[in-house]
């Protein structure tokens, strides 16, 4: 009987060690993969495929579906399965399924909202970062850990039916004239929007807002009802915004076919959803004139590999592909649309697309800094949530 119990105990211990061992293996595999060439990775990935692995990934961006299809034409012996995931549920679903023992969980994700990625997946060691050494020279270090595969921007865009709206300072949008005419997706439902508003309270953007305030009103901003200039801006801005449209696509199409003079702060790439007949009705404010303060914001899509994957080399090869010109600028891929920017500095926007290079936007857009947001989320979220209504 004792021997039997001992055997059971040993079996339990061995079984208990398996997840730790496999987690170790994924990390080791990713570390090894980072040093490999694509040919070597492909060979490893084929072994994974032969062993029955089929790489499943989640993405909050629909272009990833096309990227996966393009990938499979380049690497025909590999199979990728794309699954769209709603931004709102991303980390609830991933945080609970990865490492849970659920069969067929995802192998990797292309997700937005860095602070939650850090809190729910990376800090909990449910996801691992990966970046290929071969690309370290062409991608800035800040974009490598976790790997950013594309940036997406949200810009101030207006209906030009009445000509120019004459906005050249961001504080104008907080004035009575713009009441209910600025369209924005409810930040309590859209994580990148709340992250953008939180970023405005950072010292850098607070200073820029103070400068814009002075430029608009001819006097320095003074502390009064609000502790910082950014909080005053957020309060006034949210009083003016209109939440009629529940998605960026609806906002793009709605503003283009709606009342002249309306302004939206929405994802630039959604202009592709606007019918060609209406597209001429829209003007990107920043491309018309420089805006004092900011003219939108930029957020990244991060690629991470999940703890349970049985095909880390396939994941690594796919990330390499997305970071390469072939993957990012392939047919109908991210680079074929306005509003997507590769962190790989060697990949330029095609000339026939009405857009600017990544560098152009760095000065005028608010970038997501996951450390700052993590640190200040609670205070600013509550300030914003009580003003959303």
């Amino acid at each position, binding site marked *: 009987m004792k021997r039997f119990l001992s055997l059971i105990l040993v079996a339990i211990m061995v079984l208990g060690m398996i997840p730790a061992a496999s987690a170790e293996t994924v990390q080791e595999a990713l570390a090894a993969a980072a040093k490999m060439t694509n040919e070597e990775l492909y060979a490893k990935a084929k072994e994974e495929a032969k062993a029955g692995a089929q790489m499943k990934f989640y993405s909050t961006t629909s272009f990833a579906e096309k990227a996966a299809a393009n990938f499979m034409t380049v690497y025909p012996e590999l199979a990728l399965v794309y699954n769209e995931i709603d931004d709102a*549920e991303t980390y609830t679903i991933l945080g*609970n399924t990865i490492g849970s023992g*659920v069969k067929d969980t995802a192998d990797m994700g292309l997700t937005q909202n860095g602070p939650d990625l850090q809190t729910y997946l990376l800090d909990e060691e449910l996801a691992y970062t990966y970046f290929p050494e071969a690309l370290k020279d062409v991608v800035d270090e800040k974009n490598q850990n976790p790997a950013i595969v594309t940036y997406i921007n949200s810009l101030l865009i207006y209906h030009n039916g009445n000509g120019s709206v004459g906005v050249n300072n961001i504080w104008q949008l907080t004035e009575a004239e713009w009441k209910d005419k600025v369209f924005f997706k*409810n930040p309590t439902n859209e994580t990148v929007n709340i992250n953008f508003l939180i970023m405005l309270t950072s010292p850098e953007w607070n200073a820029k807002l103070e400068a814009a305030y002075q430029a608009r009103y001819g006097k320095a901003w003074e502390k009064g009802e609000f502790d910082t200039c950014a909080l005053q801006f957020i309060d006034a801005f949210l009083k003016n915004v209109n939440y009629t449209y529940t998605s960026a696509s609806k906002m793009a*199409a*709605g*503003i283009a*076919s709606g009342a002249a003079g309306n302004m939206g702060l929405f994802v630039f790439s959604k202009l592709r959803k606007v019918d060609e007949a209406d597209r001429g009705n829209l003007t990107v404010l920043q491309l018309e004139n420089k805006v004092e303060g900011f003219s939108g914001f930029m957020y990244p899509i991060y690629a991470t590999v999940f703890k349970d994957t049985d095909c880390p080399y396939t994941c690594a090869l796919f990330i390499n592909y997305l970071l390469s010109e072939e993957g990012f600028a392939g047919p109908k891929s991210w680079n074929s649309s306005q509003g997507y920017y590769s962190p790989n500095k060697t990949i330029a926007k095609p000339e026939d697309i009405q857009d600017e290079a990544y560098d152009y936007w760095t000065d005028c857009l608010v970038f997501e800094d996951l450390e700052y947001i993590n640190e200040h989320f609670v205070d600013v979220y509550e300030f914003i*949530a009580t003003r959303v*209504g």
Partner: protein
Amino acid sequence: MRKPRPNSLQHEPLIYRLRAFVTNPANLLLVFFLLVLITLSLMPMVTMLTNMFTVHLGTEKKMYRLPVGSWTLTHFKKLFEGSDWSKVNFWEPLKNSFIVAIGAGILGIAIGGSIAWFVTRSDLKCKKFISSVFVFPYMMPAWTLALFWTNMFQNSKVGGGNIGMVEAVFGVCMPEWFVFGLFPMIVVIGMHYSPFAYLLIGGILKNMDATLEDSATILKASRWTIIRRITVPIVMPAILSTFLLIFSSGFSSYTVPVFLGSAVKTYTLSTKMRALIQAGYQGQGYIIAFISILMGCIILGINQWFTGKRKSFTTVTGKSGQVSLVKLRRANWPITIVLIIFISFVAIMPLISFALESVIRQPGNYRLSNMTLHFWIGTEASAYETGMIAGILLNDTMWKAVGRQVLLALVVALIVGTSGMLIGYACVRRRGSKLSRAVESLAFFPYLMPAMAFGTIYLAVATSENFKWLYGTFGLLVLVSAVKFLPFASRSGVNSMLQIAPEIEEAAIIFGVPWRKRMTRILFPIQKSSILSGYLLPVISVMREVALFTLLVPYARYLLTTMLFSFNETGYAQYGSAVTLLIILIIMIINGLTNKLTGASFDKGIGG
């Protein structure tokens, strides 16, 4: 006179009583379902209650600087303490939820009850058309009606200034309160559930003995007095039950407020619950879920207080041999025409609107030159800057989602329909016993839980340490749907079994016919149509449910309805409209096929 069985045994030794108890299949069934329902219906409540008092990973951990899992009362303090936070996240949405739920309840009963009266108690023309078409809105997901409402009434003076059909055709601009906010929420939810009122109240009116009304007529009572003093009191239990059902559904509605309230910053408890959970305030989210359940219980209590007991869904009270129809005379055609126009607007116009919206490229432009079939049958090359590769009929992901949704509906129907029939059998055979009452109440309990709250509770259960393996699986969806949609099947089972005299089964017992044979050869064939209707209702409920599944599906395109919600939320209006039509078509095919083959239909499952 024969004494009731339990009394004859109460002085027997325990062993004999126990033997008598276990040899009665009804007792075993009741014990089995009691255990199952305690586990699936009450135990999740315990998980939810725990979550109301503990600290979660993420925002709460950062905010309270406490380890995950620590006990705290801070969620309550924060949500109720009268600050701006509390007003915005709880008190104001609570008020709005009440207004929507009460308004929708009254409107649903007014519309559904009136039409039920005309169809069952008058000589109205075109009854068949009216009664078959009026149930369409119930087959559609509620928020698709909300989208229909905005497609119709949005105009250049509200929201983003986009022109809707009414302005495009008639040049009329409706005011903002008509297009967005509490009023359209009440109308849309009321319209969606009015077929419910029609079927429940109609079921009573259809079977009501006309003798009372005829006597009143002979005594020269006016038509209005007859309705007020005779008809309404008779249908009062059905009215109150309908109010309970619509109130609970309206109070917990999530999708309709999202689409109709955002534009005017009007939020309900359900929308706030989701926003709080998403932002990491899980504790407060679960408190809101609990309060939604509490509201359902309070309304149920009021309902029971009014009716004396909660068996008011029993609509078959004995067939009347006398049904005299009120003659509408010269008002007949005008009333018929008004009703046909109204029903066409609420039941047929949405279908036309969805069909049109699924083929137009440019919103608001209904010219032929603007139409395309790309969203239905487009190939990869021709699909219009799509969210999917190709049109929905040519897309693998879509067909997989259809397959899963239909499979889910069928599996759930099988489980729920069978459980409902067995619960009905056991409760009726042991009617009056504590065990029977407990099982009947527990089987109804899930209806009071808002779908969103129910999904949230199961999320909490399925993400707890012992059940993590369940999360993200098809099995979880089956489980959660089976529990959530059990109430109607169990009511249907109880109603159908009540109609069978116990003597029929007792005769078979005397001849030594085993229980399984009695069920399959006697009871089931007698009530085949009614029992099959109990199987059909969960099919329809699953086919159009979304709030229950939003948090539980592994990804947005997993099921057809979550895919549809995702399309609608992300602005793929054409795909969304096409999928809506597809859902309605599937429901109609299943309902039609079942009706053709077995004579059952989903309205019989409700009580029609």
